[in-house]
């Protein structure tokens, strides 16, 4: 870091003569930010990087969720007496309320999709290997937090689907050995799903997880910045040295491409929100169990699995799976990154995808 040195290599942003220069100088004289911005932005990334956007897209979608979620929180009322009506009100009567809610709904689904795609991309390109083990571990934590987001947010409309899916979901959590009963009571704020549960889930969804996710994403990005993006062709040398191969600037080239991907995502969100608006079933009735209760699609695989194996296996299997993901960089000792040189990893990866997708589709149709 060339802190304090005269700004020779840090050119004015954009280099435009249209008034950017004096404003830039004004901030620079007060904040001395050029060095920092330079260090952050003026790095290089591998030249071929089409699949690298998945992580950034997930971040963009998180941003969309924060904005739309904040807006929704201005009208939503987190008590069973008022929740349903407040959602109905903001969907029907508030200008663009339908849009904000539907974008939030689809944003949540797409965020999970792209998070999984990002995970798969990192897995198949072996970017979790040395020196990026910690980045991967933090990433698995982010996956967990995002699932908590999905689970807690799902209850908030307080319609039949939301209520009963939460009942089933917390029951499954209660099946975890040893800590299950405590976990169930902690999650529900009592023995049953009541207004205590709604308060708890609302607080977690709107305060705890956003802060946690925000901070941990920052850590994740700092790690990524420190290590740069991994090359899919050649493993990072040990001891670390500057990677060779074709690279291009992060700013503005890569960032421009990233923003283009974000704009495409925005368009997709708008189309989905307009053609498939978020629905609302009838209000939650704790006395009337609907015929078919199914969790949201990202939990369908586990739900289906529980129907066919003993309960304890069905609860421990996903936990073991997540644990394996967590320690993956430490148990995969093969230094190779190219697919042909790591057949076991590739086969296990494809098998894992097939099982999860298969179980999810099965859960959907049954």
């Amino acid at each position, binding site marked *: 870091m060339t802190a304090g040195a005269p700004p020779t290599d840090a050119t004015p942003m954009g280099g435009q003569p249209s008034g950017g220069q004096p404003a830039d100088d004004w901030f620079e004289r007060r904040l001395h930010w050029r060095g920092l911005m330079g260090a952050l932005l003026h790095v290089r990334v591998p030249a071929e990087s089409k699949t690298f956007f998945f992580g950034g897209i997930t971040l963009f979608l998180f941003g969309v969720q924060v904005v739309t979620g904040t807006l929704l929180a201005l009208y939503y009322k987190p008590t069973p007496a008022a929740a349903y009506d407040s959602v109905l009100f903001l969907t029907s009567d508030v200008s663009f309320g339908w849009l904000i809610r539907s974008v939030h709904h689809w944003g949540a689904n797409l965020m999970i999709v792209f998070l999984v795609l990002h995970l798969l991309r990192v897995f198949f390109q072996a970017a979790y290997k040395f020196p990026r083990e910690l980045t991967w571990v933090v990433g698995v934590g982010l996956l967990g937090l995002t699932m908590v987001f999905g689970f807690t947010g799902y209850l908030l409309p307080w319609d039949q689907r939301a209520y009963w899916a939460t009942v089933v979901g917390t029951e499954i959590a209660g099946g975890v050995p040893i800590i299950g009963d405590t976990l169930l009571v902690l999650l529900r704020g009592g023995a049953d799903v009541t207004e205590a549960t709604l308060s708890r889930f609302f607080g977690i969804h709107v305060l705890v997880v956003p802060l946690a996710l925000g901070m941990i994403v920052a850590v994740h990005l700092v790690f990524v910045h420190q290590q740069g993006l991994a090359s899919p062709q050649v493993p990072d040398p040990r001891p670390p040295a500057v990677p060779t*191969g074709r690279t291009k600037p992060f700013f503005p080239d890569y960032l*421009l491409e990233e923003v283009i991907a974000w704009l495409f995502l925005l368009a997709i969100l708008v189309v989905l929100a307009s053609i498939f608006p978020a629905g609302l079933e009838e209000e939650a009735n704790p006395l009337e169990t609907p015929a078919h209760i199914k969790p949201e699609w990202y939990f369908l695989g586990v739900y289906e699995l529980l129907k066919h194996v003993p309960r304890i296996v069905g609860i421990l299997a996903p936990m073991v799976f997540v644990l394996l993901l967590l320690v993956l960089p430490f148990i995969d000792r093969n230094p190779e990154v190219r697919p042909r040189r790591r057949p076991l990893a590739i086969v296990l990866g494809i098998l894992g995808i097939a099982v999860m997708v298969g179980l999810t589709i099965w859960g959907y149709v049954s």
Partner: protein
Amino acid sequence: MARRTLPRLVLAAPIAVVLLLLAAGTIAAQDPEPSLIPGPPAPTPIAHPAADGANGCADCHASLDGRQKAIVEDWRTGIHGIGGVGCADCHGGDPRSDQITVAMSEEAGFLGVPSRDQTVGVCGSCHSDAERMRPYGLPTDQYSKYWTSIHGQRLLAADDTKVAICIDCHGSHLIKKASDPTADVYPLNVPATCSRCHSDATLMEPYGIPTDQYATYEKSVHGQALITDKDIRAPSCASCHGSHSAKPPRSSEVVDVCGKCHTATQELYLESRHSELATAAPKCWTCHGTHDVAPPGERLFFHDSLPDYECTTCHQPPDMALSLDVEQFDTEADRRCDTCHHPESLIYSQVEAIAGALGGATDAQRRAEAKIAEARGLGMLVQDAEVALTEAKTGYIQGQAAVHTTKLTEVTVHTEEATSKAASAEALAQAKLDESLFRRRAMIIVVAVILANVAILFAIKRRIDRSRREQGQGAPPAT
């Protein structure tokens, strides 16, 4: 003057008598009231030595053979066994002794197995005694009612041992409370119990009673409710025919029998022109059937194609009096207004108007429903339209019920409300459809703007790439 009035009187008298006879005959022919054979008074209970806790009968019979043992077990688990009504109370004899000569002796009042008409008396001897039945809160009118029933009258008139008596429905030894869901006389089980005999063609043939009642009832609205939905509020055979006083209702009684449950409908019917005519007008069963009651609908107004009109549809020989018998409306297709109201009759236009009012309301509701479904299919929230439609349905149902008054004004009051509410439901749904269309159009513009921006960024990117190549800035050497 006297010379002319006398011949006139003489002429007039026979004519008057003839007319009077005709009238009486007509009235009699329409609804003959057969005089009932009075039933015998309730006998006293069988006199036998008191049991004082002993039950020699059961002790002995239980060890006789399988069949006797089963009988004793039945009695023990039944309500009589639990309640302390012993063998001797129905069969007589001395329950204190296990010697057959003492226990089953005439001196002890032993009756053996009572004959079928004796049985009615045996049961009735206790069950019509008010003081005896008081602690159990049981009614005491079954005995007297039974003798008025077709079963009882047949027993009195012809000593017919095939008719139903107490034990055929209630059991002889294993008797259960009527409130016990496993009892043959529990409301849900009544149709099956009655049809044990009444669906048996060989048994019913000598009496000329049809045996299709259960089969038709099963498919009816009442049968579906009772048998399939297990709703004990639904009518069983006994609800309309009576249980102990079992008898098919007469034409003059139908409205009261159906009106036991369908109170509001009865009130409406009594406002109508139909209720003013005794036999010359439709009763409930004329349009709705008897055992095969189906959900009513607008199909009940008109035939699909004009029927062949015959005099005997409405006028009964030999005197061609106006009378509608239930048998003439056996076929469901004949249960229509225009079976009697010919298209060229005065009343027909009123029938058409009523049918039209209901039909218009139905059409309005269907249109609204279709629009709401369309809006819902596009993902719009349609609660407000659905509430308006519910209000329309309320009005329509009331309009349907008002048809029983045969008054057009009574019907249109409700159908107009139903139609207007359905129209507002349709309007609300249309607003949702318009909103959905607006959103799609807006979406296209928004997406176009976004894609324009994408194109701009692409353009910027390409210029950057090109200028890099121009300036020879490929991949710089690593520092």
